[in-house]
């Protein structure tokens, strides 16, 4: 039965050089697309680990994940652009940092791959970032939910409350975000996300969204559009660099994931609009923590086989 299903819908991936089940990949793309539409993140942090669980070689999963992220982010960014909830200026400054970080990341990626430690670093980065971001978001959103239950305001923005970031020099005005802030942290966040994007195959939305909200105090409604806007460019840059440096982008695999993802994202966005901001953040936090736990499990629990093969010898 299982064999029959596989044989009907199998498709051969030209770069990964393996036959996979198209229905599973479409469902994977659809589910991730639904979540990404709901939370306004690209979904790369979900798709790349899922592909690795599905036995796609990590190098191909990372590069193809970046390619897939473009489609869902572009679709989302268009919607936010029309609605006016996108700060193009802030996005461009973030992007500038992002391109520098991404270029650096590609070289580190190739180096780690030669060293045989790519899987480890990718897992450690995922566990570290997803774990801390998810944990922080969960704590914050639960507090916000409690506050709103007690009749208070759940808004994050408290006028007059400034942190050290607001004392840095080189200030710039971002009108759409109602923000007057130094470009240093903006470039820094952009660079960090670009770096992670190329190593982890993610757009970095799951880090960008909380960083913009909590560190820069950008209004939540502008955050998602702006984050998606810059992710489109960073993911596009990462895809092109991975194709030229490593030839690891599988266009067929990416396309199947996109088809599922784009459809799923539209439904996710509708569900997302019905939920309150703090509820949405709490759910995203739980999702992020779940992925981090799953990856941590692989890192700390004895693998079923301690030996692994790399065919072709890189």
């Amino acid at each position, binding site marked *: 039965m299982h064999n029959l299903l596989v044989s009907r819908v199998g498709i051969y991936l030209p770069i990964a050089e393996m036959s996979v089940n198209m229905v599973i990949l479409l469902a994977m793309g659809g589910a991730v697309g639904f979540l990404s539409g709901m939370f306004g993140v690209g979904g790369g942090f979900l798709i790349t680990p899922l592909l690795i669980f599905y036995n796609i070689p990590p190098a191909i999963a990372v590069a193809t994940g970046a390619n897939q992220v473009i489609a869902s982010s572009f679709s989302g960014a268009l919607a936010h652009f029309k609605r006016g909830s996108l700060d193009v200026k802030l996005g461009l400054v973030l992007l500038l940092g992002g391109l520098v970080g991404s270029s650096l990341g590609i070289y580190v990626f190739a180096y780690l791959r030669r060293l045989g430690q790519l899987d480890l670093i990718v897992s450690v980065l995922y566990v570290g970032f997803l774990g801390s971001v998810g944990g922080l978001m969960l704590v914050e959103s639960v507090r916000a939910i409690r506050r709103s239950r007690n009749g208070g305001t759940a808004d994050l923005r408290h006028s007059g409350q400034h942190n050290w970031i607001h004392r840095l020099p080189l200030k710039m005005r971002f009108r759409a975000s109602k923000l007057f802030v130094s470009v240093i942290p903006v470039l820094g966040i952009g660079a960090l996300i670009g770096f992670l994007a190329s190593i982890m195959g993610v757009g970095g939305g799951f880090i960008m969204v909380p960083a913009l909200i909590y560190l820069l105090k950008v209004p939540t409604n502008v955050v998602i559009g702006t984050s998606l806007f810059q992710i489109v460019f960073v993911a596009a840059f990462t895809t092109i660099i991975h*194709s030229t440096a490593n030839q690891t982008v599988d266009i067929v695999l990416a396309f199947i994931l996109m088809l599922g993802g784009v459809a799923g994202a539209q439904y996710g966005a509708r569900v997302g609009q019905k939920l309150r901001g703090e509820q949405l953040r709490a759910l995203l936090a739980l999702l992020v923590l779940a992925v981090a736990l799953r990856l941590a499990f692989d890192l700390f629990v004895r693998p079923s086989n*301690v030996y692994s093969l790399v065919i072709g010898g890189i």
Partner: protein
Amino acid sequence: MRLAATAMAMPLLLLLLAGGALAQLADAAPEDIEIGLSTDTVFITSDFRGANLTIFGALDDADPLIQRQGGYDIVAVLEGPRRTIVVRKKTRVLGVWINTRSMVFTDVPASYSIAMTRQPQDITDTPSYQRLGLRIPYLNLRPLAADADPQAVEEFTTALRNRMEESGLYTELAGGVQFLSRSLFRATFHLAPNVPVGTHRARAFLFRNGVFVKETSAALTIRKAGAEQRLFEFAHQQSLAYGLLAVLLAMITGWLGRLIFKRD
């Protein structure tokens, strides 16, 4: 007159007989095997999900007595292209499982399927298999580093064999070769969906009463065809254009998705 002719012919006949005996000594086995493949090229297209490959063979000039006793055995092998393979071992460092040791093997068959007429131990003994490098446990696998510690070599070689068997790339099938008649035989191999692309070699080994007699081989090409092949070449030869295409495709898909599903 007639007598004289016979007398003259006698030494010639003797010479011929002696020559025949000598030839038989030099080439103790008159048997010969030949093989042919059901196809010499397997094309991988988008719907490829494995394929069957049949090796047909003929046993020529066999000794009828041995044939009747079932003394002939065939071992057929389908060997994938040779690749360099790195075997890595994870150990626990500070509670985390990390790849700490590795060994590089060169010229490792990327796939290896072996089929036999009977159980391997009924065909010949272990030393013969070892000498011929036949069967998975006796495959000739050598590490790149000549001075590697023998104990480590043993450990990593075993791991390499086990992993290849687990992934279905190395298989062994007793009874996979059948005699269709006294002299015709057939071996069927299944090519897995993840069969390595490249030139494979089909080999057939003939054994007579447990003694290796002769080997023959034929080549099989497995290659991607159509769109798969073009995409692969495109990705490798014009990687920048390929990357740009991938980005463009993603943007168009995202845009179309919005057009189709949008409600605002």
